[in-house]
C-alpha cells in the first residue's frame, strides 16, 4: 500500500497537480513518525504510512505552511479519516480554497498510543513492531510481546466512526463503505452516570495534572486563532499559572471554541505530556451538538458549522419557561 501511495504522489508531481505534499516519514525513535514535506519527486521515497502515523497533518495548513496557502500554492495532504475532516473544516471556514487542496486518503486502521504500548511492555526499550491483523508484536532488546491492537490504539481511534476520508481527491485502495459498529459516546455516557460531586472530583483530579504547556492547543487543527485568549494580556482573562480553576476554565473555553468544529482526531490527548483525557469534554460537546442540531464536523463541505448557523424553531428546553 505504501508503494501505491508513493506512486500516486509521484504521479501528482509529474502531472504538476501539487506544489507540495505533506506526509509522514519514519521517526528517529521506534513507534514514532515525523511529518515529511515533499517538495520534489526524490523525497517521495521517504514516505510511509503505518500505525505510527499519528500526527494530524492538516494542522500545517493553518499554522507552519500558512504562507504557502496564502500564495495560492497547491498543497497535497495525506490524510486519515479524522485529518480529512479537518481539511473539510478548513474549506468550510475558508482557510484554504478547495481547488488548492489535494486530499489523498489512506485507509486508517487506527494509530498506536505510545503511552499504552510502553505501559504494556513495562517501559522497556522498544526496537520495532509488526502488525498481523488484529495483533501487534512489539519487539525489544530481549523480549517480544504480542498485544491486541485495539487495546493499544489511541483513545480517539477506539471510538472512531470515520476511519476513512469522507471527502477526497485520491484514495489509496478503496474507502470502506460501512461505518465501524462502535458506540462513539460510550465513555461520555458512562461519565454522565456519576453524581455531580463525583464528576467534579474526577475532573479536578484529571485537570490538576495540567502544566499549562498548551501543547494541546498548538497541535489542535481547529485552534488557529492569531492570538489565543490565554496569551492575551489586555484584558488578561485567565491566570497563567497552573491553578486549578484557571486550568479548568482554559480547557472549558478551548473546548467551547472548538465546539462543533472538533473532529476528534485525538491529537490533543496524544500531545499531552501528562496524559490527561482531553477528549472526554470534546466528545460531550460533539454528542450534545449531534443530538440537538444533527451536525457532525468535517463531513459535508457545503454545510455551515453548528455554531455559525441557527434554526428559528429549535428546542429550547434549557431556557427558563
Amino acid at each position: 500500500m505504501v508503494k501505491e501511495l508513493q506512486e500516486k504522489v509521484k504521479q501528482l508531481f509529474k502531472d504538476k497537480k501539487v506544489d507540495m505534499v505533506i506526509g509522514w516519514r519514519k521517526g528517529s525513535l521506534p513507534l514514532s513518525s515525523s511529518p515529511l514535506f515533499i517538495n520534489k519527486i526524490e523525497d517521495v521515497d521517504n514516505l510511509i504510512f503505518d500505525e505510527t502515523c499519528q500526527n494530524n497533518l492538516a494542522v500545517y495548513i493553518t499554522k507552519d505552511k500558512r504562507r504557502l496557502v496564502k500564495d495560492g500554492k497547491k498543497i497535497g495532504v495525506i490524510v486519515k479519516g479524522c485529518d480529512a475532516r479537518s481539511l473539510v473544516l478548513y474549506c468550510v471556514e475558508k482557510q484554504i480554497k478547495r481547488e488548492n487542496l489535494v486530499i489523498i486518503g489512506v485507509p486508517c486502521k487506527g494509530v498506536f498510543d505510545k503511552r499504552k504500548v510502553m505501559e504494556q511492555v513495562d517501559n522497556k526499550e522498544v526496537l520495532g513492531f509488526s502488525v498481523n491483523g488484529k495483533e501487534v508484536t512489539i519487539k525489544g532488546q530481549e523480549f517480544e510481546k504480542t498485544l491486541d491492537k485495539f487495546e493499544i490504539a489511541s483513545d480517539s481511534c477506539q471510538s472512531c466512526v470515520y476511519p476513512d476520508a469522507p471527502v477526497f481527491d485520491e484514495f489509496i485502495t478503496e474507502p470502506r463503505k460501512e461505518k465501524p459498529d462502535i458506540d462513539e459516546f460510550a465513555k461520555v455516557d458512562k461519565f454522565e452516570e456519576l453524581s455531580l460531586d463525583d464528576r467534579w472530583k474526577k475532573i479536578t483530579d484529571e485537570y490538576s495534572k495540567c502544566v499549562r504547556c498548551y501543547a494541546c492547543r498548538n497541535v489542535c487543527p481547529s485552534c488557529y486563532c492569531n492570538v489565543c485568549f490565554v496569551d492575551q494580556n489586555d484584558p488578561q482573562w485567565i491566570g497563567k499559572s497552573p491553578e486549578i480553576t484557571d486550568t479548568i476554565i482554559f480547557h472549558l473555553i478551548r473546548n467551547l471554541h472548538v465546539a462543533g468544529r472538533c473532529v476528534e482526531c485525538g491529537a490533543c490527548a496524544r500531545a499531552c505530556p501528562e496524559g490527561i483525557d482531553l477528549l472526554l469534554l470534546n466528545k460531550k460537546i460533539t454528542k450534545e451538538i449531534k443530538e440537538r442540531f444533527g451536525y457532525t464536523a468535517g463531513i459535508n463541505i457545503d454545510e455551515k458549522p453548528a455554531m455559525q448557523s441557527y434554526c428559528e424553531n429549535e428546542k429550547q428546553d434549557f431556557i427558563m419557561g
Partner: protein
Amino acid sequence: MSDWQPKILAILCNWCSYAGADLAGVSRLQYPPNIRVVRIPCSGRVDPLFIMKAFQTGYDGVLVSGCHPGDCHYLSGNYFARRKFAVIKPLMEFIGLEPDRLQFSWVSAGEGERFSEVVTKVTKDIQKIGPITKMVKGV
C-alpha cells in the same frame, strides 16, 4: 451561615431584558436584591468566559437574559446565543457544577413583571443550593 445571601450576576441585553429590568424598577415591583447587573449590547455578545469568570470570582449564580426569539434588535443575535447556551449549560453540568447555578431566560422590554418573577425564581433556586464551592479561585 443563616444570613448568607447569594450573589448573582445578571447579564442582560440592552434592548429587551435591561429595559425589562428598568420597567420593573419604574413600576416599583419587588424582587430580591441579589443580582448585580451587567448590560451588554446583545445576548449574542455573551462569551462563555464571562460566565466562567463570574463563577471563578465567587458569584453563586449567573443569569443571562436576552430578547425573545424573533425580537432581537440585531435580528439573529439571540439565535446564535441560544446555540451557545445549548452547549455551555450541559457542559457545566457535565463537569459537575449544579445546573441551576446557570440560567437563561428571555425577557422583553415590556415584561417588567416577568423580570421580577425570573429574578425571584433564580434567587430561590440558588438559595436552595447554597454557596458556591466549585470553580471558585482560592477555595
